[in-house]
């Protein structure tokens, strides 16, 4: 019964979130233009990382500004 088996990606240590993002990425990159350009922009996920030390803010890093 397939419902008793853990899915292959789960067994290999991939989370559902990563699994669905990989599938979505593959589909987005296989689209025809002009849909593709719009879709690939959805691939990008950026974040702002604020570090703290002993209660004080230290470094800030915004991934979209990484070189």
């Amino acid at each position: 019964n397939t419902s008793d088996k853990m899915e292959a990606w789960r067994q290999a240590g991939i989370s559902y979130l990563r699994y669905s993002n990989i599938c979505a990425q593959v589909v987005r990159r296989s689209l025809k233009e002009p849909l593709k350009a719009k879709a690939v922009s959805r691939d990008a996920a950026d974040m702002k990382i604020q570090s703290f030390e002993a209660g004080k803010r230290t470094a800030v890093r915004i991934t979209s500004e990484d070189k």
Partner: protein
Amino acid sequence: WQQKMLRLAWAARMKAPVVFPAVGSGVAMAVRSMSGEAEAVATQKDSSALPHKLSLSFMGPNDAICTKKPVDMVLVPGVSGIFGVLPGHVPTISELKPGVVEITSASEVSKYFISSGYAFVHANSALEVMAVEAHLLDDLDHDAVLSGKKEAEMQVKNAKTDVEKAEAQLTLEVFTAMAEALQSK
């Protein structure tokens, strides 16, 4: 529901049996009143009173392809296999694998390729299909799919760690599903 309750209360006072019309609801309720109290007895779902249409809501995080659209049948790629949803389908929750959602409405068939998602069939013949990416088969680039599939096959061979291998395998599965969908268009 409120209307039904009002009619029940009315029937209780009138001490008369009330049968609710089955059109659009599929459930007939008979009311017997003894000592002034209404007793609602739900009878079996009359198969001739099943809704004639599925109410389909097909959506993704960015947009909705349709919301509460009346359709006749939807084929859905569940992880345990493709299954068809007709009006009156048993309530179901199913995870979806990369594949084709086929919507039949008045002998018109539309096919969408979805990357992954979930399908929820509700008791009132409402079907919700949630997919991260859902596109018409015509919007898939045939050449990109075939070349991507070849590349993915190479990556499966070259993958070293377990995670790399699983991700490459997954990528290959999605490309294979897309190639199959395009072939059977």
